């Protein structure tokens, strides 16, 4: 019991990894293996099949949003349906932040995608379920930033 997410991966239909978050320590080799297996399994699934798979001792929950697959591995006891909503909530937060989020936003602002995830999940457990609260703290973080002008006055390259 006490299930939680072990990892979260975002990858494109073409098999390009866009985000990887690991909630338990794994070696680089193990990570590569997981990434490869997930892409192989998930990308091969025909449309309109169920969103759950069994992989080793993990439950895999995945969902496609436009060109991106969101894929996570759960320990045995975790709730699959609710995990689908964790993925959905993350998409909503990205959407709220970027405004109509697309794959390109995540490519060019990868660090933001990680920060947003951190506001929402910690150690594979959901940290804040309120969309307002998460968006609020992201907003606050942004106000802490220096202004664009301040940056532009510095060398860009």
């Amino acid at each position, binding site marked *: 019991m006490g299930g939680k997410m072990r990892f979260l991966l975002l990858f494109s239909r073409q098999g390009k990894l866009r985000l990887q978050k690991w909630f338990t320590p794994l070696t680089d080799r193990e990570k590569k293996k997981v990434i490869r297996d997930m892409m192989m399994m998930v990308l091969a699934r025909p449309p309109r*099949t169920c969103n*759950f798979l069994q992989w*080793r001792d993990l439950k895999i929950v995945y969902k496609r949003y436009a060109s991106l697959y969101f894929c996570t591995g759960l320990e045995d006891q975790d709730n699959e349906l609710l995990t689908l909503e964790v993925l959905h909530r993350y998409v909503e937060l990205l959407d709220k932040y970027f405004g109509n989020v697309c794959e390109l936003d995540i490519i060019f602002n990868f*660090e933001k995608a990680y920060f947003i995830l951190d506001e929402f999940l910690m*150690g594979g457990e*959901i*940290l804040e379920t309120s969309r307002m609260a998460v968006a609020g703290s992201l907003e606050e973080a942004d106000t802490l930033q*220096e202004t664009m002008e301040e940056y532009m006055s510095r060398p860009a390259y």
Partner: protein
Amino acid sequence: MPAVSKGDGMRGLAVFISDIRNKSKEAEIKRINKELANIRSKFKGDKALDGYSKKKYVCKLLFIFLLGHDIDFGHMEAVNLLSSNKYTEKQIGYLFISVLVNSNSELIRLINNAIKNDLSSRNPTFMCLALHCIANVGSREMAEAFASEIPRILVADTMDSVKQSAALCLLRLYKTSPDLVLMGEWTSRVVHLLNDQHMFQGVVTAAISLITCLSQKNPDEFKTCVSLAVSRLSRIVSSASTDLQDYTYYFVPAPWLSCKLLRLLQCYPPPEDGAVKGRLVECLETILNKAQEPPKSKKVQHSNAKNAILFEAISLIIHYDEPNLLVRACNQLGQFLQHRETNLRYLALESMCTLASSEFSHEAVKTHIETVINALKTERDVSVRQRAADLLYAMCDRSNAKQIVAEMLSYLETADYSIREEMVLKVAILAEKYAVDYSWYVDTILNLIRIAGDYVSEEVWYRVIQIVINRDDVQGYAAKTVFEALQAPACHENMVKVGGYILGEFGNLIAGDPRSPLVQFNLLHSKFHLCSVPTRALLLSAYIKFINLFPETKVTIQEVLRCDSQIRNSDVELQQRAVEYLKLSSIASTDVLATVLEEMPPFPERESSILAKLKKKKGPGAVSVTELDDSKREGGELNGGGERAADTAAMAASNASTPSPSADLLGIRSSAPMGAAPAAAGSLLVDVFSEAGPAAPAAAVNNDGFLFVCKNNGVLFENQLLQIGIKSEYRQNLRMYLFYGNKTSVQFASFSTTVSCPGELTPQLNVQSKPVEPLVEGGAQIQQVLNIECLSDFSDAPLLNIKFYGGALQNLTLKLPVTINKFFQPTEMTSQDFFQRWKQLSLLGLGSALLDNVDPNPENYVCAGVIQTKGQQVGCLLRLEPNAQAQMYRLTLRCSKESVSKRLCELLSQQF
């Protein structure tokens, strides 16, 4: 809302990313190398970089790393960013540190310092960043540094967001290093977080995750959370969909919190307090009722959230095993079985599997059999079909076994390759478990081999043989059926194996026209050339058995054995069998042949190795406890008694044709099969004992290690997580190789071993070992070599202590099988010498030399050896006088040191 440009404007980064995009792999690498060189020169340059540039370059490095390239610098710059006062710089620094965890201790010290500063900064955003970093890295070092600080933050008067982060951060550390997180005085205050009426839902949600995990380990300490959880749950369940404002998700009030509360309650038995229990049952009923209400939204998010709570409630109902609620849950799941949402059908099948194992709902689950069979046949999605097969397996009992097995068999013909092996195991187990007449069982297994021969593992065909051997009422039928099956022009090799074995044992039961011995033999032999080496080896054993069963086949079979392709076969195993069997059939009298090749005695009772295999495939918990008990009970019926275990073992060894047939055939070395390394060919039947093999010694070794007295390798210890194999050899010193195998899919962290020589052993043994790697990957094995020097004779065993973190902290101590006889140096001597020394001294195997032609009585064994210790050499002579008729033996040892003879005597007497 802000648009994309709202980034922090690292223009250089954006340019770099767009540069990399859509480049060929080669061009990408080229561009990256150029960038790495650029960054390196900036970092090394004379000009101090400003915070912005540092941030930009660190971020570029991170991007390159995430693309899958190695990064071996930049850590120091990232650490510098941690102490920046600018939020974005700090944030990038922490992100880099979290992703590229580094074990350099100097760096860790600096990182910990920065974290410490941020934790005490009283700036909530900085505190959260620091807490995130601790949770993301989650290493033992982090736990050591911060485990005592975080509970303080959790209960302090800080912002909710900080409390939430502190709760989950602590949870993360607790999972890595439970020994370092000491709740003690904080316990009541943490439980109290559930109580606070005005508390922000978010804090409660995070706190419950922590409490759930902690109460699994210390349920008593957190017992008070049960009633608090029930009242929280009750308030949510009865609230209107808008009461909880932003914590309402698509018209479902607080789904995350509800599920977590229901999960927490699953750590405890049903509440004893009647009022609390009543309130909880009311909640569960309300949740079940709501499932029948029309949805408040057509969005899938609404139904997912609602049903997530429902499934969590059903898990709790299953946990409580309460009849009324179980039946209601089962009916609800029954509706889902036909739902148009594939996800719900999948989950319903999955949950029903658990329901099937409760006596209260088993019958209710069974009523859905037609729907489930239909799912197996018509579902488009293989993972749903797999769940349907699982459920059929779980709902199977005597009343429906024939129907279910027949459906599974017919599904196997078209089943996806990925699930065939598991299906085969399941069919085999069900057929055995619910066999009323064994002819049905035999038919089923032979059908399995016919339909899915490639997926029939050794365990399955070993098992059918065990059962046929143990049940004389089915032997004739089995022989007849395999004979018929073998008639097919193309039959699977597994069929040949079963056929060869069974005809070799029971061919005589059906040996009338038209199945005369020679017809049987020719039928088997017609398959011989198409078979692999192990199967051929088995067939040769069947042939020698034929010679015994049917003397009239002797000439034909001897001819076959004698031909060059057998007796000079390039495969050693086949050649040896041919030579030995030919010789045996020519020299031995019919009486001897009849004894040596006697019918196999019944196999001892044991858990089906198929069940063990299925459990291994699916992981623990996949096969419920009730099933195990059942199979043991029923396995007992069909296996008969297990008194002749040792005999059986010896016979099995004889069939496996070990290098010294005379000794093994007579069953003197009854421990032979235990030690026999299962090589592919020789192990055909020895492997049947694989269940008894590793399990039994592991248990015994933990007590006294006697099993390793005469063996130099084997399995020292095995549980769900870890297997320890051992191999030792003596050369001046004793060299012991320990193999630690991680049986799980997850990594073991902080793996360490220590060998100690307690008490008076310290001056007697000198043990040297190299430390092992602290990380053992899932499925991997690591080796450790011990060098053990014997300083003087000893009787205790050194202790091996193993500590590692695999899911929880594991700590075990084993006795190493180091016994005095491991230091034997064999000595050759003549009869005269032997008895001369015998007279001088006041007592085989175990390292000393076995001497032939020394003792005037050839039945007796005598051995001689010198135990090499650093201080002195102790000469030892041994004499073993068996008396076969009385089934007794006399063992005499004479050594030049009394304590040695005493210890050897203890060790040896345990061996018989």
